[in-house]
């Protein structure tokens, strides 16, 4: 009858390539939160009661693809989310705006689709798990210590110091640097300075 509508969210071509890449998680970080006694492996569907309305059965496929922070931000941007103060015009709910505000402070706000597909292509040499590539794209580690929390058992997998430096160089080269989150104290000082300048300008 009716297919998916292109004016909601990303069109089918854009972004699905990356969905396919990350959705087949081969690593230990598999998306298995659903208690296995509900999972019907044969049919690949879970039947369960949703906590909101317990008398309803909602049939679903729980994981149709993992999204990077950038893809969610892109989705919200394509619907018209922006930083303007009057947020009534675009059809975006309060919760979506909170997500938007959160994502604008992460490295996702400076990325584009080409950048992340390029990065994941070039990560092939380092034999990283899909979950680790996702983590790196979302966090954008800038030093070995930041990378350490992302990589799991690097010594056992043969990722030595040289490989870590290689990964960091790749991050430095391909992923743009994250936005600078200003400290609250600095903001207040800037405002008072501007206020004083305005006052002096008016007096003149």
């Amino acid at each position, binding site marked *: 009858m009716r297919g998916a509508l292109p004016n909601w969210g990303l069109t089918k071509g854009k972004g699905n390539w990356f969905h396919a890449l990350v959705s087949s998680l081969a690593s230990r970080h598999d998306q298995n939160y659903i208690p296995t006694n509900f999972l019907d492996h044969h049919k690949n569907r879970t039947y369960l009661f949703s906590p909101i309305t317990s008398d309803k059965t*909602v049939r679903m496929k729980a994981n149709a693809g993992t*999204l990077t*922070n950038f893809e969610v931000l892109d989705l919200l941007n394509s619907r018209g989310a922006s930083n303007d103060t009057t947020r009534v015009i675009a059809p975006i709910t309060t919760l979506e705006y909170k997500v938007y505000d959160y994502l604008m402070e992460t490295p996702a706000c400076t990325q584009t689709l080409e950048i992340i597909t390029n990065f994941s292509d070039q990560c092939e040499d380092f034999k990283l798990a899909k979950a680790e590539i996702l983590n790196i794209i979302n*966090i954008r580690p800038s030093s070995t210590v930041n990378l*350490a929390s992302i990589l799991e058992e690097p*010594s056992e997998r043969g990722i*030595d110091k040289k490989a870590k430096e290689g990964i960091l160089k790749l991050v430095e080269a391909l992923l743009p640097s994250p936005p600078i989150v200003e400290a609250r104290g600095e903001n207040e000082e800037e405002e008072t300075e501007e206020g004083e300048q305005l006052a002096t300008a008016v007096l003149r």
Partner: protein
Amino acid sequence: MFCLSELEDTVRVPPSDLNLPLEVAIKKALQKLFLDKVLSIGLCVSIYGIKSIEGGFVLPGDGAATYKVVFRIVVFRPFVGEVIAAKFKESDSNGLRLTLGFFEDVYVPAPLIPTPNRCEPDPYNRNQMRWVWKYGDDEFIIDDSCQQIKFRVENISYPPVPTERAEDAKPFAPMVVTGTIDDDGLGPVSWWEACAPISDAED
């Protein structure tokens, strides 16, 4: 952090919305039903798109049209092992509580804060406790001044809805993410800004 999930559900479009285009009316009904709610798959953030709509029958005694809709939603569901940047919300003797803006139930229990540490009453806030990490001779405080705190997800739990609650209990949290900050690179970002590896043999 976010996933797409495909769901199929029967949606009831109230009679007042029947003058709107069908997709808009169904999306409105879906948003009311799923947005900002926690399902077993996680917190629903946004409707990604509708794949198919069937039905449109009006059941007897009801003025609304009922459709069977297959659609996809964006769900917030971090995986175990994911590193997420959050902000400090509050802390007490059990541990820390962090917030992501749209999701506020991230807890770091006391055993997952780097040791040796101690908990002291907060000098600025009478009701709160402050956690301090002692490393060598330096002491690092975890409180409101930390801009971003990185944590790694240890566990996600969906506690069942309680039938009885005490008067002053905290509001019920249907989804609780437990995190750890006890590792290299985790915890407040300012802790790791100027640091050097301890030994090369660590690799």
